């Protein structure tokens, strides 16, 4: 079974469901060392996106573009531009792609990552969503480079994302609101790394469900 890009808009609706379901959990995580609104911000943006998507859901490229633009225009904060850029760059990467095969998927998440690195100015180890995103993208690329099947590469990505997310617990925040806490930011998970993990897990599971 293959997954045409034009029929993969459901990935974005799945993301909306997953983020909205995690709303309170993400805010709770943010509450420990941030300002406790990460779930609120994310759910607001993803809900706005659901309205903008309409039905039937457009193709994946259009859906990701709508998600990116909605986040950019609708939620502000740091997540608006960061995840907005993330999804917009993912959308752009699908230019001319017909199938969401492993190669296209890999290009897509790499483009998203590069966008975030570019505008955010943070790096892995700073206790941000990059600590989830960077190892996850690298794991996926490593798996496909090693010739592992698409589904296995997705599993590797998910596992790396979770590990990355959990690795933030031990870190001291170097950017964002929590950074003012210095040592006091240690011992708690980063909220953005948790939402990023939800996003990557959901993408992996939803893609995997269609590619057997």
């Amino acid at each position, binding site marked *: 079974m293959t997954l045409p890009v034009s029929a993969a808009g459901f990935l974005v609706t799945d993301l909306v469901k997953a983020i909205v379901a995690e709303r309170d959990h993400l*805010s709770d995580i943010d*509450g420990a060392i941030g300002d*406790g609104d990460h779930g609120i911000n994310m759910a607001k943006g993803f809900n706005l996106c659901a309205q903008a998507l309409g039905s039937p859901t457009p193709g994946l490229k259009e859906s990701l573009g709508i998600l990116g633009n909605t986040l950019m225009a609708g939620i*502000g904060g740091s997540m*608006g531009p960061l995840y907005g850029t993330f999804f917009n760059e993912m959308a752009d990467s699908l230019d001319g792609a017909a199938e969401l095969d492993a190669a296209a998927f890999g290009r897509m998440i790499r483009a998203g990552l590069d966008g975030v690195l570019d505008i955010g100015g943070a790096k892995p180890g700073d206790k941000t969503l990059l600590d989830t995103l960077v190892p996850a993208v690298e794991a996926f690329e490593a798996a496909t480079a090693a010739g592992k099947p698409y589904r296995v590469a997705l599993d590797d990505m998910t596992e790396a994302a979770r590990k990355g997310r959990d690795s933030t617990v031990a870190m001291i925040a170097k950017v*964002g609101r929590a*950074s003012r*806490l210095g040592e006091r930011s240690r011992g708690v998970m980063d909220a953005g790394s948790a939402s990023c993990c939800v996003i990557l897990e959901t993408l992996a599971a939803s893609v995997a469900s269609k590619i057997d």
Partner: protein
Amino acid sequence: MKKLINDVGAVVDDMIDGLIRSVDGLSRIEGERVIVRRDLEAVRSAGQVALVSGGGSGHEPAHAGYVGAGMLTAAVCGDVFTSPSTDAVLAAIRAVGGPAGVLLIVKSYTGDRLNFGLAAEIARSEGIPVEMVVVADDVSLATGTSNAGRRGIAGTVLVHKVAGAAAAAGLPLDRVAALARRVGDGVGSMGVGLTACTVPAAGRPSFSLADDEIEFGLGIHGEAGVRRDRMQPVGALVSTVAERIFEDRGLLAGDRAVLLVNNLGATPAMEMAIVAGEAARAAEARGLCVERMWTGAFLTALDMAGFSLSALAVDDELLGYLDAPTTASAWPT
């Protein structure tokens, strides 16, 4: 949570509505959370630089209270403690931006830097001259260490005042921006929180402090401070904070300075007067010559009890801009 609101989802719009209704000379850009001077056209036709600031809401009277002749041209209001979107900032820039250009005054937070920065890029690509000044006056965070730099807090209001007066005096964009940078670089601020604050959508305080605990170097979004300590007499609190600021900003005996004594939101006026007295005393003890001192709610954190102190070295030029008239409702005259 007991708040004088209608609905947690409507606080920002209701706040803007109340402000427009109760302050003369303001209007709202249709469909946007952007407050502008009603006499916008006069600013434009006078060829003056327009000033845009803003950020998350919850810091009232910042920033809409500083919109008026001699201060800001527009204020962009995000959700509570959340930077306004790139699109909202862009709408403000487009509304006020003429050939004289636009200065963006931004407090140093990731979201604000990103959204104002992206909007500035887009506006420039549309031909509007835009400069951006990022204020990072919170000296409670030591620089040069592992953290990503300082945040912008109440000292930002002095940047609005000086830059606004310079723009009203007809200075060109580069000179207005240079003055804004001078104030932003010069001013140092630090806060002490007695309580946390409650974001309406969250419904409960961001953290809790025992009845004998306070936070030094608290953020203006209810972020915990850099150090938790025991409650102390206000004289000790103010002198700790003042010394930190004076030291960090290199303010020495004989220097001329202005002080801004800021209510973080829920501090009663009696206590603010006492804090002001202690701030004057601390400056005196350092040998500073306090040229001006303003006390009140300038940049708040919702219902947080506590204060922040800002100090800025001044000369006659800066004093002139600080003393210049403004119609902005939240600037004391």
